[in-house]
């Protein structure tokens, strides 16, 4: 049954990984990549950030695209996850199919191509060793070094950028040799589902540019599944490197398909589907994507990485009762001034009589 469903979504899957096949190097999805010789360049990556009942569900895939040795990635997280488990088999592919319905004539062609931080949690999923780390930039740097990884030269600044907001990172070490031994084929992805209780969901975007020079392209698809239409910061306007490709009620069939995948029973019966396409240069991606799905429409500049924590005083909402109270006090004050003026002692009267 599962195989049949995967086949059903195979076309979407192939579109997601087509670019990955162009390079015979291990490719990991969503997160800055680190390796013994620096960063491995990311091509296009797909991520789902679902938010429901105060919990962010972050689903991404780590792709095996050949090569050997060990490779890794670092993904900043908005909070400490309660679980890191193998993700569903078709969630990401089904999302791609929802927003990018394949043209029938293209199907055959695509098929032909597809072919020393504190360790809070450690999980092994297939050929991936996933570790949830708590620490600042120096701690993450030391951890990476201890585990044989070398961070790219922009890592110090990028890690500081994230550690100022959340010192929780997910390190994924990918053993390509183990993947080969497991019989994983080129293009086989390992989906990972991270469950993070948080009041403020955000999606790390800047990390996608880790290891890239300013002019290099960064491309990714970010799907958001929220209870209602979210407000986003920065607003995806295309000019800033992010573009709103889809924003509509999620179809019943999509929600049903997603809910039937492994670990996806949290998907509500109704939701809003948003697709944000990242099509930027590395220099443009100096921010993350802050999400306000509460309906208030006020995504956090801090969560977007546009302001430092503590640098913003949240604007107080207008309260009529306070305004009227202030008016009343002002009125009493005015009356008092008038009364004092009338009872002023006349000139020549001795003070303190």
């Amino acid at each position, binding site marked *: 049954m599962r195989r049949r469903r995967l086949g059903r979504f195979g076309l979407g899957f192939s579109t997601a990984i087509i670019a990955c096949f162009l390079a015979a190097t291990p490719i990991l999805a969503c997160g800055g990549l680190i390796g013994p010789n620096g960063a491995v360049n990311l091509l296009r990556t797909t991520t789902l950030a679902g938010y429901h009942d105060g919990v962010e569900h972050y689903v991404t895939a780590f792709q095996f695209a050949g090569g050997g040795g060990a490779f890794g990635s670092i993904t900043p997280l908005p909070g400490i996850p309660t679980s890191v488990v193998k993700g569903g088999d078709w969630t990401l592919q089904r999302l791609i199919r929802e927003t990018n319905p394949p043209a029938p004539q293209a199907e055959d062609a695509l098929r032909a191509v597809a072919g020393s931080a504190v360790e809070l949690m450690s999980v092994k999923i297939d050929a991936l060793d996933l570790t949830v780390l708590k620490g600042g930039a120096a701690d993450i*740097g030391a951890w990476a*070094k201890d585990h044989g990884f070398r961070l790219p*030269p922009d*890592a*110090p600044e990028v890690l500081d950028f994230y550690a100022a907001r959340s010192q929780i990172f997910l390190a994924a070490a990918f053993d390509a040799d183990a993947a080969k031994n497991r019989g994983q084929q080129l293009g086989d992805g390992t989906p990972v589902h991270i469950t993070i209780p948080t009041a403020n969901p955000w999606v790390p975007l800047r990390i996608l540019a880790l290891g890239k020079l300013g002019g290099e392209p960064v491309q990714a698809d970010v799907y958001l599944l929220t209870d209602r239409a979210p407000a986003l910061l920065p607003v995806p306007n295309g000019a800033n490197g992010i573009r709103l490709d889809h924003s509509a009620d999620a179809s019943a069939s999509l929600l049903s398909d997603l809910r039937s995948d492994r670990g996806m029973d949290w998907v509500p019966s109704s939701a809003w589907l948003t697709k944000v396409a990242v099509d930027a240069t590395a220099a443009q991606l100096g921010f993350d994507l802050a999400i306000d799905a509460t309906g208030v429409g006020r995504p956090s500049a801090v969560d977007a990485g546009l302001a430092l924590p503590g640098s913003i005083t949240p604007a107080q909402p207008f309260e009529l009762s306070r305004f009227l109270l202030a008016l009343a006090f002002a009125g009493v004050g005015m009356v008092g001034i008038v009364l004092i003026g009338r009872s002023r002692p006349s000139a020549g009267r001795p003070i303190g009589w």
Partner: protein
Amino acid sequence: MPGRRRSIGLGLGLSIAVLSGLAANAVARSQDPIEISITIHYSHFEPTLIRVPAGRPITFVITNSDPIDHEWIVGDAATHERHRTGTEPVHDARPTEVTIAAGTVRRTTVTFATVGSEQYICHLPGHEAYGMVGTVVVTQ
């Protein structure tokens, strides 16, 4: 009269001794290393331009404030070309080639013999392209 002559001789001798001492001290001081600090932050050197006199030992105090390792390799174009394809994981044997581990300070003393300019570069993968380059101008 002979006493006066002796006094003049003594004074002259003392003056010569003092002047000789001062001169020797000045010569010795001219051979003391000049200390220059270099900071590495967010994978960039600061400063990126240094002027030093030829023939005088220069002690570079290199502070790496980053959470990743860096290199400081100074030399001519041929030196850097060799390091761009080099495989030495750590540099420790030559004063012109040092590895500065994350969050540490290294001191190294170099004497530039000839007038001209040399570059100092971190040759870890991607670091030079990221901008980890500086210049030493050697003057008379």
